[in-house]
């Protein structure tokens, strides 16, 4: 695609700056791919989790709305209302929940990529998708629905399920607590239950604000919840609530079918909270392992490329055999293992600027990371 800014008849007013385009590129790889084959269940039963996220960090929460007794069965078991009166009661309840979702649902931008997040504690912890947070210790820009912007830092990410954690940097709200979501659990969820999704599809739009969607849970798996709350690029990392307004999952990826919307169950954040909060990053989602496509000698003192795999992202980017990789994105490369680690820290679809030493000259190579 041509540089958007060169089109005089086509100013990028719809926040279609190159940043937005890059954001969708990065996010869409995740959001555009259907995972049809069932993924292995990566974690143990959440009942064995040693501590609760909300025991430590979260008190109360602004999104919960008490379920009226007449809607209790619909809440607990899911299903279709039995009368138009019950449908209208369900509607009134959803309206009340929807009115509370805007303040804790935030837009998150890191570098050129945009996604969402949901604040879950007074102190400003934000749950998001791993592919939105990307890597630990990056600075993030967090935009509230009313346009207020604060700075944040990425913590850990469990890439096995696409769970990521961010924290708003201290000292930006006086002593006041951040508005945050009420926490639920994903373990009791069943197919058929109603759910409410919020987010900033397509990126942040001040004239529009948060976009609400309502659907039902179509299936519950260990690693993901599938709903017919339609999502698209930019929604990644945004919250999914149950009928009571409690956070149950975080948006992750979609298939082509409008009813293929996958969310990370919230219990995963609880299970691995200590690692996430400590800024650890690990694993990859099946089918999303980042690939560069070069080989080298792990024993040698430099990251010298001995083989560029035909058809690989490295070949497409112009890497050559004999190149010594010195810089890969933010990471200084000292030897082949450090290059391997740097690649593992990227997301498929991400564009990485690299510097190589080629016959004594420093050359710049830009690669779009592939996936296995």
């Amino acid at each position: 695609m041509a540089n958007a800014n060169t089109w005089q008849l086509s100013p990028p007013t719809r926040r279609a700056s190159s940043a937005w385009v890059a954001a969708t590129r990065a996010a869409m790889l995740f959001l555009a791919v259907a995972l049809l084959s069932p993924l292995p269940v990566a974690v143990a039963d959440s009942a064995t989790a040693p501590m609760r996220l909300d025991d430590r960090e979260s008190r109360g929460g602004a999104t919960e709305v008490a379920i009226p007794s007449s809607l209790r069965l619909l809440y607990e078991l899911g299903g279709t209302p039995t009368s138009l009166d019950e449908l209208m009661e369900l509607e009134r309840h959803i309206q009340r929940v929807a009115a509370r979702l805007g303040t804790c649902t935030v837009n998150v931008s890191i570098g050129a990529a945009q996604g969402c997040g949901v604040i879950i504690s007074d102190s400003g912890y934000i749950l998001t998708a791993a592919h939105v947070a990307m890597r630990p210790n990056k600075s993030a820009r967090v935009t509230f629905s009313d346009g207020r912007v604060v700075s944040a830092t990425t913590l850990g990410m469990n890439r096995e399920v696409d769970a990521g954690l961010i924290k708003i940097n201290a000292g930006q709200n006086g002593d006041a607590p951040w508005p945050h979501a009420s926490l639920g659990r994903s373990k009791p969820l069943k197919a058929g239950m109603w759910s409410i999704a919020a987010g900033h599809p397509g990126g942040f739009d001040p004239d529009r604000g948060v976009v609400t969607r309502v659907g039902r849970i179509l299936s519950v798996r260990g690693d993901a919840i599938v709903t017919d709350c339609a999502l698209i690029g930019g929604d990644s990392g945004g919250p999914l609530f149950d009928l009571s307004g409690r956070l149950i999952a975080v948006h992750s990826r979609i298939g082509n079918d409008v009813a293929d919307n996958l969310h990370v169950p919230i219990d995963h954040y609880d299970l691995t909270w200590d690692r996430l909060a400590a800024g650890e990053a690990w694993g990859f989602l099946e089918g999303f392992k980042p690939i560069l496509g070069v080989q080298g000698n792990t024993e040698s003192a430099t990251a010298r490329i001995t083989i560029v795999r035909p058809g690989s992202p490295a070949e497409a980017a112009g890497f050559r055999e004999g190149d010594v990789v010195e810089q890969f994105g933010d990471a200084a490369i000292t030897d082949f293992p450090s290059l391997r680690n740097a690649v593992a820290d990227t997301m498929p679809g991400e564009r990485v600027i690299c510097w190589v030493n080629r016959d004594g000259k420093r050359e710049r190579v830009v690669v779009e990371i592939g996936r296995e």
Partner: protein
Amino acid sequence: MRSESSHGGSDRVDVPSHASLWHSDRFRRLALFLACGIVACGILDPPSPVRADDSSTPAWLRSRMSFRMLPRRDNVEMRRLVQPLTRSVGESVVEVQSGGKQVALGAIVDPAGYVITKWSELSGDPIRVRLADGSLLKSRVASVRRKSDLALLAIEQPPKSLIPIEFIDSVPAIGSFLITAGRGESTKGLGVVSVASRPIEHQGRLGVMLGDGQGGATVLDVMPSSGAKSAGVVLGDRIIAINGQNEVSRSGVMRTLRGFFPGETVHLTIVRDGTTIELEAPIRDYGMMQESENDSRVNGPRSARLSGFEQVIQHDTVLDPQDCGGPVLSTSGDVIGLNIARAGRVVSYVLPSALVQKEIDEMLTEIEGSVLAED
């Protein structure tokens, strides 16, 4: 007896194609899966039962289908639940055909045979409307409101028993259910209000970069997947007139082009290598021109005219583009507006009743005026 002045009708509408390319095995498997999804969608309409015992479908696929279809918010049970609401207006909902295929829904707004519908889909003659009783009646465009993308159709030989629909000026809160009524008792979709009512600016573009030319504007670049590209505009072309109106400067050409909505077509007069040629170029949405293959695949089929509205209610109902133009109901059965566009995977737009009613009143008055003038 009314007679109609014919307004507009000359602009053609280009519907962008959404050719899907399946590059990998994964996508091919998905394609198979999607095809099954379409079969399954067909069984959503009441009163057909879910064919769970269909022995021609392999068991693994049946379980996959039932897992996907049964709990959906717009499943058979939900459609059955809201059927009394759609039935209450079904007599007033019509299908609008243009050039032999259904392009939109519409609603009867006057017993004399007037129907409101989405204007930009009416690309070719003949225009016909199918009533609730199944009769197919020849119609013509009686009046157009381009800014709101509305057309008033006149049924040429209207039956006596037409029941007009009543628009209710009420804007439902975020989270409210919206029901898209079809002809007769059918429900075309069910979703919720996603965003408070707001204006939507349009991003209609020809898709060229222009420089100054002697008397006109010279094309310096043509955007891929633009209407200019598909019409055959090339580098070096000098645009000297648009829709027959001479243009003498680059800024003039740009100003004129800005006046067109996505989904409209412009007639360009171009000087190329000393020869004057004429081209028809569709105006397309800039966001759509820029989007990746992935984006356009997950967004699915959309209306060509999907932006540029004074006021819309955004909702999440999954709609086919040809199911726009018809009435949208609240859970209390009020007609709160008209679906005006399918704009993306998560976006459908309703024109609120207040705006629709205002446009209808103006168009009916205009038609009355033209009748008086002819008398």
